[in-house]
């Protein structure tokens, strides 16, 4: 049998479309460095919002940090919060608009350093919204300073000889910490560096929004371990490999709490 003679131009037509950037991402060029996971994380959140048909009811909160301009890229109603305060804003909105779908998008400095109190108390009160936590172990926007999640021995511009935990304290596993609180309903740690991981993370975000929609009674917390190739001073591909080798052993991927119950790892 002879193979049908088909050219690229035959394939490229609307009826054959399988993947296109969602219109819920604006056409603005992302302010992120090449290969940075923020762009992928933004996009899959917007894909879920679109697929779950909740564009008209979703309000997002942008943090201070690299993703301070998230509201420029996500084509929905957005608020920009003071550093670390996104969970407080989200509480204010969700409590007064209980039917809206609310999420915060926060980096490690925002969520696990300056905003620790807001994070923990929103989790502990069981606020019914979603926190998306991007953990890249560094302060990207201000030029690669040490973050609360910087690994032991890891270099940054304020730990130039590596993080000395005796001197600088330990990295904070805030995701494990919030999983201990009775107010969290779903806590998971994911990544977006491979197609399979992106698909998993997207499912996690969908689960989180479904929980919120069904008022499952508790906060949904999705950590995304991500790269910061500029901060880490590596090429994007090397940074992803470094992340797999160094970040994942310390911040293992997977569900930590499902349906309000801690996942038994044994």
């Amino acid at each position, binding site marked *: 049998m002879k193979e049908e003679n088909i050219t690229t131009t035959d394939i490229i037509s609307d009826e054959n479309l399988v993947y296109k950037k969602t219109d819920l991402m604006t056409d603005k060029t992302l302010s992120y460095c090449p290969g940075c996971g923020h762009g992928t994380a933004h996009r899959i959140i917007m894909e879920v919002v679109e697929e779950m048909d909740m564009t008209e009811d979703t309000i997002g909160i942008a943090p201070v940090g690299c993703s301070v301009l998230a509201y420029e890229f996500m084509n929905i109603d*957005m608020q920009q919060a003071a550093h670390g305060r996104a969970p407080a804003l989200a*509480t204010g909105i969700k409590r*007064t608009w209980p039917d809206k779908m609310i999420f915060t998008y926060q980096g490690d400095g925002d969520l696990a350093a300056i905003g620790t*109190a807001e994070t923990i108390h929103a989790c502990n009160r069981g606020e019914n919204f979603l926190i998306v936590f991007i953990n890249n172990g560094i302060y990207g926007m201000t030029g690669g300073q040490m973050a609360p999640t910087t690994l032991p021995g890891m270099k940054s511009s304020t730990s130039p000889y590596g993080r000395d935990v005796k001197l600088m304290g330990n990295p904070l596993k805030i995701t494990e910490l919030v999983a201990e609180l009775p107010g969290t309903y779903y806590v998971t740690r994911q990544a977006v560096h491979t197609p399979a991981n992106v698909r998993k993370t997207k499912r996690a975000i969908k689960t989180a929004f479904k929980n919120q929609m069904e008022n499952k009674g508790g906060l949904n917390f999705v950590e995304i371990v991500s790269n910061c190739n500029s901060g880490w001073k590596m090429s994007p591909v090397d940074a992803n490999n470094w992340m797999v080798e160094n970040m994942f052993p310390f911040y293992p991927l997977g569900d930590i709490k499902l349906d309000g119950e801690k996942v038994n790892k044994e």
Partner: protein
Amino acid sequence: MGELRLMKGNEAIGEAAIRAGVDAYFGYPITPQSEVIEYLTAEKPEERTGMVVLQAESEIAAINMVYGAAGSGKKVMTSSSSPGISLKMEGISYMAGAELPCVVLNVVRGGPGLGTIQPSQADYFQAVKGGGHGDYKMIVLAPASVQEMADFVQTGFDLAFKYKTPVMLLSDGVIGQMMEKVELNDAVPRWTEEEIVEKSSWATTGKKGRERNIITSLDLDPSSQEKHNQKLQAKYREIIEKEVRFEEFQCDDAEYLFIAYGSSSRIAQKAVKIACERGHKVGLLRPITLFPFPEKKIQQMIAQLKGILTLELSAGQMIEDVRLAVEGKIPVKHYGRMGGIIFTPAEIVEALEQKIIGG
């Protein structure tokens, strides 16, 4: 006539908020204003009107809950006292920058630092001159009675939404704690979701049938940030033009003038009477709005006056605005007490005689 009740100032604020159709109160306890949240939680406003009352983990969280809800078009308020208000200043600056309406009550106590829990007026600078960072202003209303504590909730929200700005009620421990008769307005219903979407088309209520709304105080482009600041300044000029409020007491033929706001003005009224009995022609001007300040009124009175004594429970803060208005044309002196101590009418008259009449 509305319902009459005997209430503390802090309770009157809570009751007035429920009746004014306020959507949410977020706060954190601190003396001398914890009765506000205590009253609100006891009243079950969630059953009376659907109003949300939440005790936050800090003043910082509370003001940022206010930011979130206000950014989504809701009528929201918070309250605190001096050290707590300092913590709220970040959020207030962000709200001024993002042009969000809200009402913040400060029941001022003695400072600096943790200070005392007694009444004070030492937060005038913080309220009127900024407090938070950046070129911004809040409208500042100074209630002098329990009645005004109640009334200014509605006034505050009217102004906050009219100008899309935070409004501060600058009270103190005297007004917050004292009991007086108060006439309460009849309850008005909270805005419906449809009304909010219509009234506050700028708010993040979900992108429905319009382009997305963004609430932010960030602009990385200096020229558009400057434009935004010019717009804020134009708004503040309009507020100065239209919203000055004050009260006069025996000002018509006064040769000397007390200027005092809030609880000080009540003591000053008695001082005016004593001074008159002693043969001095003294009047009292009570600024009700501290920003905008009744500068023009003071300027109109200069020709008839021999001197002004400002009376503040502080080292003298409002006096700077009085002096700016007077431009050195007549003597302006300050008399005050600090740290939570309140002056007596007799002390004031003595200060008038020594500092102004004899000075």
